[in-house]
């Protein structure tokens, strides 16, 4: 691999890695607050993707119950992205209500919450499939308006191409990360969230309405998941509702690698896996899908707490 190819791979890797990072952060937020993994995260990812598509294109897709149904409106890509993410956030809140709250109020084993969120994911994805079919979708290339589809750079006699969508998703990811960082570290609500994550009972003693903050967290998590789904959808197309499940699993690899509960870890893990996938040699491109899981397995064996996580000491 020469320098140009390296650069190309690097750019590709950073781009997709930044989306993985946003997606993984959704997991991380819920994990910090509740100490469990929300298996329904992949479902809001899917939801966001389909919503953004529908709004940007002005109609529902080509399969399923709502095939070809026209929407009375069509928004610009940016607006669709935003609205899609907001609705996904609300979906996240719904997930909390259905799958997590009943279990929390019973003091049930956290593994059960895993299972119930898994159930919700399954139901959601299949309802989506029923409504819009399982075909592959591609966002039409004119969805971003008048911007060029790609930027070419000449290095010597070779060309390095950066697709516009890659710039968009990288820019959006960085923006979201920055806003999130600001929000969590510098706003009152953000600080309260951190307090709840640190110690929920103490936080409630301090007058913080823990339940409400859990809701905020799930909204934020859903927002991020939906946004990530839209970005991936626009970049690679939507490969049927189940693609959310696959990404959902990949997201797990990201957070385990970075360290469960660690925000910088999620970002680092996302970038690492994104880059690793991008550098898979062309001959083995079919194995790209396995890269994330190979990392997951390896990390679990060698350093379960991940790159930036703290090692869990068990109280005897």
């Amino acid at each position: 691999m020469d320098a140009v190819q390296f650069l190309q791979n690097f750019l590709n890797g950073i781009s997709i890695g930044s989306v993985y990072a946003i997606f993984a952060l959704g997991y991380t937020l819920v994990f910090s607050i509740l100490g469990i993994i929300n298996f329904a995260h992949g479902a809001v990812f899917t939801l966001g993707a389909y919503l953004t598509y529908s709004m940007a294109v002005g109609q529902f897709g080509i399969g399923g119950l709502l095939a070809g149904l026209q929407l009375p409106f069509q928004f610009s890509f940016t607006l669709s992205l935003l609205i899609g993410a907001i609705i996904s956030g609300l979906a996240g809140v719904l997930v909390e209500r259905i799958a997590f709250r009943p279990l929390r109020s019973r003091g049930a084993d956290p593994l059960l919450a895993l299972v119930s969120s898994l159930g919700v994911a399954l139901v959601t994805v299949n309802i989506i499939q029923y409504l819009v079919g399982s075909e592959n979708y591609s966002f039409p290339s004119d969805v971003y308006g008048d911007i060029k589809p790609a930027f070419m750079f000449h290095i010597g006699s070779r060309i390095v191409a950066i697709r516009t969508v890659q710039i968009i998703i990288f820019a959006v990811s960085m923006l979201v990360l920055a806003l999130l960082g600001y929000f969590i570290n510098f706003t009152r609500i953000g600080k309260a969230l951190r307090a709840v994550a640190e110690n929920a009972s103490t936080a409630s003693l301090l007058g913080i309405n823990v339940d409400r903050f859990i809701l905020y967290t799930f909204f934020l998590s859903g927002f991020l998941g939906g946004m990530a789904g839209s970005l991936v959808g626009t970049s690679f197309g939507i490969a049927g509702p189940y693609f959310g499940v696959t990404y959902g699993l990949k997201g797990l690899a990201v957070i385990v690698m970075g360290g469960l509960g660690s925000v910088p870890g999620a970002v680092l893990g996302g970038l690492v896996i994104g880059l690793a996938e991008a550098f898979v040699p062309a001959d083995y491109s079919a194995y790209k899908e396995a890269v994330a899981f190979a990392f997951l397995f390896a990390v679990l064996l060698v350093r379960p707490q991940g790159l930036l996580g703290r090692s869990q000491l068990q109280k005897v």
Partner: protein
Amino acid sequence: MEDFLQNYGFLLVTLVQQSLLAMSMYFPLTAGQLSLASPGFYSLGGYIAAVMATADYFAPWRDALGWMMFPLEWLIAALASALLALLVGIPALRLRGIYLALATIAFVEILRVLCLNLEITGGAIGIFGVPQLFESRWGYIWTFGPLLVITLIFSSRLERSRVGRAFKAIREDELAAGAMGVNPTYYKVLAFVIGAVLAGIVGSMSAPFLNTWNARQGTFDASISYLAYVLIGGGRSLWGPMLGAVLLASLPELLRPLKDARLIINGVVLVIASIYLPQGIVGALRRLKLVTLDRFAVLWGGQ
């Protein structure tokens, strides 16, 4: 009778097969391990049988052994599953709870991607035209049926044995079990291997049953289905997984309009079961029995 078997034979055999797969998830659970690895071993077993039954390399074997080729396939599948389970299990079972579940998810995915791309597994298309052992689908009750009976007897005897006790102790409190002289890693791996071997054998029996085999047999989806069986039927009794499998796998068949909604049903089941029936139906029945017996005792004894 003939008609009935014709129409429902396939379903009945499938119910038995699904019960077996539920059991393959049950064994690690008896030692407290939530493993989602069964589909991986099921897939492996199926591929082994499919390859042995169709590849040219094995033609001389097939000619020499005739129908005995099938039991050989089962044996090889069992051994391969055991080996792979040891390879994967020994490192993975040092993990607890969610970490173990994640590791097994990763294992299944890696295996799936491998199977999608290797030549020997026929790539994305898989392997077609696996020779049949029996003439009709219903005939396979003679392989799956005895296997289920053997598995149930095995499980029952295991429960009452020293090894079964060790499993139970680990499930209750792994740390305390260690402090009382039980080697947790050894028994967790053993439970894992038992589950894996069962899944592998079922896979090798399923390849001729289903006639084709491909990477879609070993997916994350499948592990969710088996999880649903065990959850709804009850993960604390050896009858639970079977009950759950029969219920969930037959529902879409019995209620025709629900057929397409099978996965949605599975999902709903998972949500409801984990919230309202954490011990599963058998557990709920047990509690009910206690209540009823109590009442009776008052009626009979309280003269």
